[in-house]
């Protein structure tokens, strides 16, 4: 194995962009075209008046690759600012999942019990299914979904990670 493939790190990067057509394709194309990893990517408009969107991307690579990713993102024309949330001090990361579990009897009761422990909310139900809504760090969502597996898990929808730095300073 070459030294390039060792010490892989995970980073969460926030990118503030002009909300213009094709901007997301530009970011995604950059990752695929240069062979970078995307573990999660979210995007939404965050300032309608100024027409800013915020992209949160979770990626992994060697420190050299990660620096490249940031430099490459920063030189895209519609990018205003980028921030390496993992590296630039503490940050809060959250993800939302909708989890559908179908079943009856003991399994159904058990799923509700676990949902309660995880502070998941029931957002839809019938006699033979629940849809749970849960927010938290990604690994917590992973554990919850794993636990639902034997109890009749039929569908999962996750938002991907959104993140923001701790403390009073903005991006």
């Amino acid at each position: 194995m070459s030294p390039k493939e060792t010490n892989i790190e995970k980073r969460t990067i926030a990118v503030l962009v002009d909300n213009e057509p094709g901007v997301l394709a530009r970011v995604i194309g950059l990752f695929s075209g240069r062979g970078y990893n995307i573990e999660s990517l979210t995007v939404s408009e965050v300032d309608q008046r100024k027409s800013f969107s915020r992209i949160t991307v979770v990626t992994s690579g060697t420190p050299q690759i990660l620096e490249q990713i940031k430099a490459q993102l920063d030189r895209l024309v519609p990018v205003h600012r980028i921030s390496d949330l993992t590296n630039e001090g503490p940050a809060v990361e959250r993800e939302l999942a909708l989890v559908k579990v179908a079943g009856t009897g003991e399994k159904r009761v058990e799923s509700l019990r676990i949902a309660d422990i995880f502070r998941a909310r029931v957002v839809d139900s019938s006699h033979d299914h629940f849809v749970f809504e849960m927010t938290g760090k990604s690994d917590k969502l992973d554990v919850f979904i794993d636990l639902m597996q034997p109890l009749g898990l039929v569908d999962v929808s996750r938002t991907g990670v959104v993140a923001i730095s701790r403390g009073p300073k903005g991006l």
Partner: protein
Amino acid sequence: MASEQLSGAEMVIKSLVDQGVEVIFGYPGGAVLPIYDALFQQNNIEHILVRQEGGAVHAAEGYARSTGKVGVVLVTSGPGATNAVTGLTDALMDSIPIVCLTGQVPTHLIGNDAFQEADTTGITRPCTKHNYLVKEIENLPRVMHEAFYVAQNGRPGPVVIDLPKDILQGKSDCYVPPEEIKHRSYKPQIDAEPNRIEQAVKLIAGAKRPVFYTGGGVINAGDRGSELLTRFVRKLGVPCTNTLMGLGGFPASDPQFLGMLGMHGTYEANLAMYNCDVMINIGARFDDRVTGRLDEFSPNSTKIHVDIDPSSINKNIMVDLPIIGDAARVLEAMIEAWDKGDYTLDQKALKAWWAQIDEWRSKDCLAYTQKGKLIKPQYAIQRLYELTKDRDTYITTEVGQHQMWAAQYFKFEEPKRWMTSGGLGTMGYGLPAAMGVQRAHRDSLVIDVAGEASILMNIQELSCIAQYNLPVKVFIVNNQWMGMVRQWQELLHGARYSESYSASLPDFVKLADSFGMVGMRCEDAADLDGMIMEMIDTPRPVVFDCAVVQDENVFPMIPSGAAHNQMLMGPEDKAAKPISEEGMVLV
């Protein structure tokens, strides 16, 4: 106050005029007819009709590189845009400022698989610096002016503006002049932090074996970039090497010039890179053709890297002191800091360094023997250089062996005289590029140094050259092989010459004749000088078919996967240093 009512097409022309554009290269088609109609009714902008859209982009590249201005292209939707893709990628790789206007089907038909529809912004997104699809006429003036700003600021590059036909035909009073447009997000850093400049001059002052390694960034910084580089390097008395893109950035006749570096660079340049203790990279990007084997690249040097593009830093080679900024501005600041700090170099060490370099130089790595009637390609190119060097000459090239020989044997004294496809390596670049150069410099001597294979890739542009009577000289180094492919097959694939022979070549003299140009063919070394002079003195386009020895290879050469100190010096060397398995994978 609202300005007059203009159609979208008229606004396009007005924007171009306001941006100082005097010529555009293009090819009409359904979607851009409104622009062609507006062009017809004005006299400010000349249109050069190419014969294929790829030629338009290369012509604009030649124009841009020889003038320092933005090259402008106008093509239609669908195939017009897709044909432009190679040229756009070429301009992106070589950082050439281009604005390419593409027609598009009307907005209500976009996505309907309409006639001559292509997803132009989708296709060109990875091969442009930026691109736009104009969906409202109100955005058109802003987008036009922004495109020029983006194309030429920071690291230059191509920008595409996709223009749906209904936008071109619509009318509005929304036109605004360029001065009123400020880009929201794109503000590249052009001045370096002063403390980095200070650190850099300190490192240089402490060097015992320094070398300047400079690239296209110096050329893109304008004439001032080369002036300042030359001044600084001469002041220091240190060696300087240029990349393929950087040739002309430092005067080649200067004794401090080591020639080009890299895969086919000189022995002295590559060994100076390998053995230096401080490397000053200005506007070059540690391309794989330059570095060779990465883990043995200049192993003992402290590296300073000046680049306007932060993503060039630490991309291939980790550097010790990155400096973000425009090459000219950084050089100016370095000279100022050097003078102010009253720095000097260790003259004794420098003398020893030069003695070492002179020893490498004495190998005379570009030597060849010309004997008898058959013309060696190196000799053809060297004679072409000797007979044109005292003139106002511009050189373009195609891609392959002839390109490397031109880079080795031509000596460029100033920037913007050398136009070659460096990053992308586009065969067929040179002829249309020469058109663009000649259009910009009508009275200059413009020569496309070509190979017989490359020239056929855009040979249709002879028709364009004939139409505008652009007196371009096409100098074909004809060895009847795709020479560089053949060279690699010889070195790496057991001399199995798969599909690299140039069969069924045209009679280039008759071909020239058919376009009403002058055709010449030279087969005897004794005739070469006379015929080159005749070519130069012909005030019309000339196709010069120079028959050369077929099996010459380009040396010296750093084989793929090898380091700078493992160069092959000539044919006798190649058996002694077989290419590694690892190297075979590399291109």
